[in-house]
């Protein structure tokens, strides 16, 4: 039997009082795809950062191809044949593909020889792995899928034979993701070893050979993918049985609550983000907006939530809402019973340095029950926070804790509690479960469905297709600021939506 491509023995790493990795051992055979799955904060990224030389382990050994290897920095990792593709690409936008590939690997003071050498190598790599990219295209002119290929090529150019990919499909359309996995297949066939970090059970099940599950800094299991199933993996991740499907009865849509007509949004740089958009959300239904990140969904939510100006007509319960100038800000929107769970809870939805109780008033700090004369009634606010924390099972239930000290899931519960408990007519909710652990996802989804069942309208924006499909009653797909099509959620599938997300118009809905 050949030596494992990577073997970690007893890796431990602590950040202050937090034990991020605890006695982790793992063996990855060469020429396989090994998945690492776990919730946010389970320690996946820390483990990979140790492997790539960003952090130094407190204890433990790293063996590469049967040889004990010290990896004090990323230079050493590259020398050991490890390449990393980060979730957020590290490319220089206004450089060409070729320039990006040699960046940091130039030999000599002159660029020209390196560039022509790289061009030749690139052609060989492209032939060998079917990784075609135009070496002279500028990064900002090519798509996200292509940019990811450049990252992979960068690693291969540095002669990596172990590739680590961190959440590689987060920004891809389903078809781009399929292409990525074809490339990974090809790399595996050529003998490369691939470590795939993801939180998507589907990708693990479909593409990996073996999978390791991490929970709270520990490796809870390593199994052959063929011998497991998604329910079992989810249980290993969370430590208890979880419901992967959203439990809900069919929707009973009522009168239109939100009507959008010919909405246009132009951003600060003068780029049209939303183009002539029309959409209706009725009482008692959840409308999901699917789409690859950056196709105008964020801007749509921001206009509806009063964070951004737009042109066109929006009616709420038949009454027009101003889209610019006076009465178009978020305070006015809340006054008209629009609640908003923003896409980025850490930048927008919460003030991270504020106590939990201060955050419960955020956006509603004008509400009369929080005032006492000229001052704010902080005691009432704290009592209200305690009640909301109990109802939404926020842990720890401590109103004095700063928002930044809660986990992602509990932060989101605070935001969702604040918005839903206002009993809004319309709930805008963006990426409700981004960075949220599976247990909290289940809870938040249940709250959204309950709100729908009370006859409220919900507009959901998510880049997670699975979430859109399981939560929405109706799906609208956005591409380049336009709605490419609308489908009832139970009459469509990922493939059809994937085509719409890539801008291939379907038949008119």
């Amino acid at each position, binding site marked *: 039997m050949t030596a494992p491509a990577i073997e970690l023995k007893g890796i431990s790493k602590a950040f202050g009082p937090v034990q991020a990795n605890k006695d982790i051992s793992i063996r990855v055979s060469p020429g396989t795809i090994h998945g690492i799955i776990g919730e946010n904060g389970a320690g996946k990224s820390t483990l990979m950062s140790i492997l790539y030389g960003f952090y130094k382990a407190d204890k433990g050994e790293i063996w590469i191809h049967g040889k004990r290897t010290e990896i004090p920095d990323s230079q050493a990792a590259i020398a050991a044949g490890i390449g990393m593709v980060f979730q957020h690409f590290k490319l220089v936008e206004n450089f060409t593909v070729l320039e990006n590939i040699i960046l940091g690997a130039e030999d000599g003071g002159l660029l020209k020889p390196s560039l022509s050498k790289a061009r030749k190598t690139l052609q060989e790599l492209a032939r060998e792995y079917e990784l075609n990219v135009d070496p002279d295209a500028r990064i900002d002119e090519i798509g996200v899928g292509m940019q990811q290929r450049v990252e992979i090529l960068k690693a291969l150019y540095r002669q990596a034979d172990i590739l680590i990919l961190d959440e590689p499909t987060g920004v891809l359309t389903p078809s781009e993701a399929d292409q990525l996995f074809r490339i990974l297949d090809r790399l595996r066939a050529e003998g490369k070893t691939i470590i795939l970090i993801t939180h998507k059970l589907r990708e693990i099940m479909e593409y990996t050979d073996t999978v390791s599950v991490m929970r709270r800094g520990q490796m809870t299991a390593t199994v052959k993918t063929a011998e497991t199933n998604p329910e079992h993996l989810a249980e290993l991740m969370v430590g208890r049985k979880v419901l992967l499907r959203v439990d809900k009865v069919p929707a009973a849509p009522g009168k239109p609550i939100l009507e959008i007509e010919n909405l246009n949004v132009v951003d600060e740089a003068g780029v049209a983000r939303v183009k002539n958009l029309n959409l209706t959300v009725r009482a008692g239904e959840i409308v999901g907006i699917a789409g690859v990140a950056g196709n105008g969904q964020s801007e749509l939510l921001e206009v509806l939530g009063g*964070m951004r100006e737009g042109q066109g007509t929006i009616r709420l319960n038949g009454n027009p809402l101003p889209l610019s100038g006076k009465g178009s800000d978020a305070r006015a929107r809340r006054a008209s019973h629009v609640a908003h769970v923003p896409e980025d809870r850490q930048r927008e939805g*919460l*003030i*991270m340095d*504020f106590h939990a109780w201060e955050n419960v008033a955020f956006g509603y700090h004008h509400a009369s029950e929080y005032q006492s004369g000229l001052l704010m009634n902080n005691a009432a606010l704290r009592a209200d926070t305690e009640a909301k924390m109990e109802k939404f099972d926020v842990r720890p239930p401590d109103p004095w804790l700063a928002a930044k000290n809660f986990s992602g899931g509990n932060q989101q519960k605070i935001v969702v509690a604040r918005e839903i408990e206002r009993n809004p007519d319309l709930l805008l909710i963006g990426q409700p479960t981004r960075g949220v652990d599976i247990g909290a996802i289940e809870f938040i989804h249940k709250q959204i469905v309950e709100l729908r069942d009370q006859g409220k309208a919900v507009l959901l924006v998510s880049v997670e297709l699975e979430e859109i499909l399981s939560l929405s009653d109706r799906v609208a797909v956005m591409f380049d600021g336009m709605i490419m099509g609308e489908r009832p959620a139970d009459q469509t599938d990922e493939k059809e939506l994937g085509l719409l997300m890539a801008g291939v118009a379907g038949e008119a809905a």
Partner: protein
Amino acid sequence: MDKMPKWADVVLIPLISLILAALLSALVILGIGEDPIAAVKLMVSGALGSTYGWGYTLYYATNFLFTGLAVSVAFHARLFNIGGEGQAMLGGLGVALVCLYIPWPHWSLALIFASLGAALFGAAWAAIPAYLQAKRGSHIVITTIMFNFIAAAVLNYVLVNLLRPVGSMDPATARFPEAVHLPSLHELLAPLGIAFSKSAPANVSFVLAIVACFAVWLLIWRTKLGYEIRAYGNSEPGALYAGISPVKITMIAMLISGGLAGMMATNNVMGEAERLVLNSTEGAGFIGIAVALMGRSHPFGVFLAAILFGFLYQGGAELALWTSIPRELIVVIQALVILFTGALDNMVRVPLEKAFLALRREKA
């Protein structure tokens, strides 16, 4: 979890910074061949050893309280108001106009309206950079610095050409009428049977400064407006999300800040000089920045820091008077304190955070 307990952040870090600054200052004093222990003794006895010393220490502290609070309020909205100096100068003009051109029956009435005048002029001077920041994105640090120079030039013009009494060679206003004379601490404490130095300049505006401290605390931590200011200061996208107007908060925070800086003039112009002279602020606007940094923008911290800087000012003056330590060295010592408490904060903070983490891990 927070990296270290709150008391360490609020008390320990400034204290260690101070000690470091003191040690370095001692080395410098040693370097020029003087005795640092004797120097400290002289500073303490000069600034705190008599009611005369206290009178000066508190007088300076009053100036720093107003400008420190001014910087703090702006800082909560993440606006760096470097223009306290100019705003305080203009505040002086406001005080002078109120005191010279309205016949006041009693000093208390005069003080109320002089405060308003000072705040109004200071706020007006802050309003222009605030507007440029809010509407045009011109960086407030740059514009407030430039406005300090403009303020000095404006004051120069006004004093030389408009307010100078006929026949006077001095670029200053006439003396304020006797009716607006503010009671000094000597006059205030005498009925209580406390004998306070007659010649020290500390006056009733010290009380006004303490009231301002409390008012700022209420504003920032107990009112809706303070909530909005802090929210905006922490996250601008967050403010937009919550329906808090960045333009409005930028304007209001800067107006309050400028107003507080302007109110300093009730102390130095109305309380001490009793006329408006050129360069009456003597750099107090800049000291306010150090005071706010050291006081962590909290009114109580600002109060302590202001007293400390008052001590340094008065103690330093005594040093210059009684020893051969040159006046410039006093500035060096003050600069070291500012450097350590303000700019080199992380030098103390980072190792201390690590120490607390290690301590906690041992306990765990």
